[in-house]
């Protein structure tokens, strides 16, 4: 009997240690969530136009904007939108003028790569993307064609794409925005376009065109919201909100509404 008591005592101490460690884990590691609650607003920076993630249309503002509205509703704060003209236009990220003071979340085409992780802490991914072709009619082969390439700010592997296109011996024209790509395709100046997959899908849906992902040799990436490194409490709250949105089917419904068919999203 004495041995049993002794064993229970020893295991009790170990249990106490484990409980203490778990309790310590509940301490908030930073003030990001508390600060957001104090101001009552979730500040988001995003490019002015990056369909279907950001469209600029108040009735159909884009996937990212709609998701973030749902997230801020769940958290119980206002969504403060800060459209940023420089995003995507300038290759020097410092010129975008985005600071921790003017936004807590970066949206509109951030993918989870090692480079992105050097700047930001990616939130959970809600969709996947990669490079895709968009054209008026289906094609079997792109060799020797004239292709409009729109890279925007997607952070996808541009070097990989460039190698792939060179191997296909195509003529490349750099596009500066989606309208230029649409015009080029509609006028017949371009045979096909290559851009980020969700944008390609959106253009195909809007214009009744055709689009398909480029082959597997070009990687697929997870689409994320960017948070500042170290803003862990805010990240946890956003993860919780996104999990709730996924469980309620709201996330899937938003993605389908923007013509993201058979999208693989997971939190």
């Amino acid at each position: 009997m004495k041995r049993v008591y002794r064993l229970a005592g020893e295991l009790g101490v170990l249990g106490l240690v484990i409980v203490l460690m778990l309790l310590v884990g509940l301490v908030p590691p930073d003030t990001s969530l508390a600060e957001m609650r104090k101001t009552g607003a979730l500040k988001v920076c995003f490019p002015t136009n990056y369909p279907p993630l950001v469209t600029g249309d108040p009735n159909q503002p884009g996937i990212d904007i709609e998701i973030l509205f749902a997230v801020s509703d769940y958290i119980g704060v206002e969504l403060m939108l800060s459209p940023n003209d420089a995003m995507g236009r300038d290759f020097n990220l410092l010129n975008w003028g985005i600071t921790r003071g003017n936004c807590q979340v970066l949206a509109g085409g951030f993918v989870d790569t090692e480079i992105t992780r050097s700047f930001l802490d990616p939130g959970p991914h809600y969709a996947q993307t990669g490079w895709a072709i968009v054209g008026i009619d289906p094609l079997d082969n792109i060799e020797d064609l004239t292709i409009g390439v729109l890279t925007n700010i997607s952070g996808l592997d541009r070097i990989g794409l460039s190698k792939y296109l060179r191997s296909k011996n195509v003529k490349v024209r750099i596009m500066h925005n989606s309208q230029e790509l649409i015009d080029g395709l509609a006028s017949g100046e371009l045979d096909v376009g290559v851009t980020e997959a969700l944008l390609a899908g959106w253009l195909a849906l809007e214009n009744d065109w055709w689009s398909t992902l480029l082959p597997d040799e070009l990687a697929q990436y997870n689409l994320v919201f960017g948070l500042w490194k170290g803003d862990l409490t805010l990240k946890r709250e956003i993860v919780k909100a996104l999990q709730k949105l996924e469980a309620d089917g709201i996330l899937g419904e938003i993605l389908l509404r923007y013509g993201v068919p058979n999208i693989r999203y997971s939190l």
Partner: protein
Amino acid sequence: MKGSGIERSVLMVQLGGLYGLWLREVKRAFRDRGQLIGGISRPILWVVILGIGLNPYFRGEVFGKVNFVVPFTYLQFIFPAVIALNILFTSVQSAVSVIWDREFGFLREVLVSPLSRGTILLGKVLGGATVAVMHGSLVLLLAKFADVNLTWIKVLEALGLMSMLAFALTSLGVVIANHIRSFQGFGIFSNAVILPLYFTSSSVFPLDPALSQAQTRVVYPEWLVTMVEWNPLTYAIDALRGALIGFNQFDPRLGILIMGISGIVLFALALFEFRRA
């Protein structure tokens, strides 16, 4: 037939003795509240206090500007190093039992038993290593706090690496204990080994893997880079980082190789000195 029966019984005696010594070390550690407090206070201080305290200095303030050249947060970066720290302290300190046993006569009694010196030492080292792995595992309870996503595979991989590290470091502790005859001397000397080993193992600051050898020597003084690169613990922590947060500064196989070789060499050295003592 008779010979093989005797061999089997000799083997059973050795295994029974090994188990007994291992269990004694584990039970003693469980009953030592001071050790347990040390096991939880280190991760709390290092992960919670240091992690939160340094967080603002390592987070981004301007998009496009990188202060900390690692694709993880500071908390995630130091998390595997704190596991190694807990193992390091517990492993080396567990060897104090060698002095204890020598001082109070237990070692003399064990040495006259039919157990070989190798079995006695292995029992002690395995016991110390088991306790060290348990203390390292306590840090895993803070994974959620440090935003480290654990999966069963990651945990198993980490436990394997932690066991190798704990075995090598407990053997190191025994090597130290073989040379030091007093508790006080062991405490001071082991700290003089533990802390420099830890701080020069890229535990609290990274050697940027994107930089070449020459560039690294521009960012940090050459003597420091050399110390980090020559420290075997650097590769153990790097392997743990690879397993837990998917970030490696060196080839991850190097960590396993170095820990394996260190374990064998240090155990052989400990055994050589244990036999001579």
